[in-house]
């Protein structure tokens, strides 16, 4: 599924070269639920950008679904992101003044999916995260947890190979965080490959494998023995913005 070999990312700032990633090997198999952890400056964000094909490594190979995407550029990367990757960000990154359903349709818009199919699939995705009643709401009219669920719906609506979440609970209170993690656990149970970048240990406990970064290298890679089960009893019962 994901195969990284000797990934280096070097930022040149004038004459000074900083290696954000100093030769990383990582394999993530299909259907895994991984947390990438590490302090700030450890290279986990750079890792996330490379995994998400937002950035390319200076050196190394990156096989995603069997194809080397390390050397892809510009528009090719856009196509890869569109087809294979579902993004979830800390700040939700929904388009303001745009209805939830339209936000979810967005990746399909760029994939060239027809209008009717787009709407149907977007509604289905929103229903699957418990927002079937709020498809016409704009981000402003939704709580943080609900906004993140819209973002999750947007990420999974294209059936991507991997779902990448960058601090998905960073802006949420603990109850909403748990809801979001419950959705991830359910998606994982359905066979999706999910990678979460987080610095919160209790969030990482919901996943099944923790990869720890420090100074541009993988410091530890362990299996979570007993992943915590997220409680999701409140989904779909919430009121308006909190």
């Amino acid at each position, binding site marked *: 599924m994901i195969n990284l070999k000797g990934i280096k990312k070097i930022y040149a700032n004038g004459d000074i070269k900083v290696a954000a990633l100093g030769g990383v090997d990582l394999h993530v198999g299909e259907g895994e639920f991984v947390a990438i952890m590490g302090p700030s400056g450890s290279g986990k964000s750079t890792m996330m*950008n490379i995994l*998400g094909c*937002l*950035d390319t490594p200076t050196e190394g190979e990156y096989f995603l679904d069997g194809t080397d995407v390390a050397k892809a550029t*510009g*528009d090719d990367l*856009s*196509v890869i*992101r*569109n*087809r294979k990757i579902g*993004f979830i*960000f800390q700040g939700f*990154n*929904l*388009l*303001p*003044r*745009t209805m939830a359903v339209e936000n979810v349709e*967005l*990746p399909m*818009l*760029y*994939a*060239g999916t027809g209008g009717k199919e787009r709407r149907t699939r977007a509604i289905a995705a929103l229903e699957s995260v418990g927002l079937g009643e709020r498809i016409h709401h704009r981000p402003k009219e939704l709580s943080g947890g609900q906004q993140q669920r819209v973002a999750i719906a*947007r990420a999974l609506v294209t059936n991507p190979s991997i779902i990448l979440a960058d601090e998905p609970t960073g802006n949420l209170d603990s109850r909403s965080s748990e809801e979001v993690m419950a959705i991830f656990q359910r998606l994982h149970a359905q066979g999706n490959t999910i990678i979460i970048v987080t610095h919160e240990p209790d969030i990482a406990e919901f996943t099944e494998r923790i990869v720890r970064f420090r100074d541009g290298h993988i410091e530890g890679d362990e299996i979570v023995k007993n992943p915590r089960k997220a409680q999701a009893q409140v989904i779909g019962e919430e009121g308006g913005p909190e």
Partner: protein
Amino acid sequence: MNFLESIRVSLRALRANKLRSSLTMLGIIIGVAAVIAMVGIGNGATASITSQIQGMGSNLLTISSAQAFSGGVSGGAGSSASLSMTDVSKIEVGTAIKAVAPVANTSAQVVLASGNTSTSITGTTEDYAIIKNVTIARGRNITEQDVNSSARVAVLGPTVVENLMGDVNADIIGKNIKINNVPFQVIGVTTATGSTGMSSSDDMITAPITTIQARLIGKKTVRNILVSATSEDLMQIAQDSITATLRKAHKIQEGKDDDFRVQNQADMLEAMQSVTQTLTMLLGGIAGISLLVGGIGIMNIMLVSVTERTREIGIRKAIGAKGMDILLQFLIEAVVLSILGGGIGIALGYGGSTLAGKALSMDTSISLTSVAMAFGFSAAIGIIFGVFPARKAAAMDPIDALRFE
């Protein structure tokens, strides 16, 4: 993403920012409206001047006496009294010349019991009506006999009748009017031509030239001789033959200058049209500059919009928008703004020039070309001034764009 979807996305973005969109359009609206209105008014002015000159008569040649010199100082055209009734009789109607009429004119106060007015009095002969394309609505025209007998008869323009009697259709035939205290009998009223300006035959009294010379002017001057050529093609021939005739009549030796001047209506028309066309271009040019400023306004706002929506661009790119998708989105926004502004501008410009035409009482004409040009121009402005911001948006790095606060 296909083109139609791009348009939809752009329209949605414009709708989301209604105030800004309409303010941005305002520049283009004003620019296009100004171009349309200015060109419309300019064309109207050209048309009205053309019709005024043509209203002076068809295929008209105007002979006037040349300038007199006294002590080396020019008295200006017409200052010498070189034309006489003898000259008029020497110019013969023939293949090239349709009609000849002398003119001795003045302006005078006209009094009738029911009212008075000041108007221009033209002393002339029967053929004046032919040359001026004036027909008699009621009564009769002046005749050769009237001229020979210096009859105190007058043919009135409809405006004069209205000014004197308060009604164009008032029965004035046979009544006596006083022109500068000289009694004249009204023998006819001309048909309204609708022409305006100095040479309007509507606000004019025509009378036998001999009467006017004797009673009103006091000397036997002929100010102009009007000649109507049989066709436009024969105007030059007519002009040449008149020149030859008059030189012979005035006994001007070979090599000496004419003591008269023959003006061709076509030349006048051409000169006037070139003046108004230059004016139209000038006005249109100034308006065009405002259109350019409007275009820069669009670019300005689009640049602000691109910066402001950096995050949106980042999101779109992260989930799969290609550079071209983003470029198209912003380009279409700019083009939609300018085309919409252009459309509104055309409507406003049309309304404005119609209003201005009403106020200046002339017909304005909006040509299809100027509408098409304004429209094409505003679309082009949208593209030209939209490309730069759109390229800037398309070239954004998604990581930086997403990090943008």
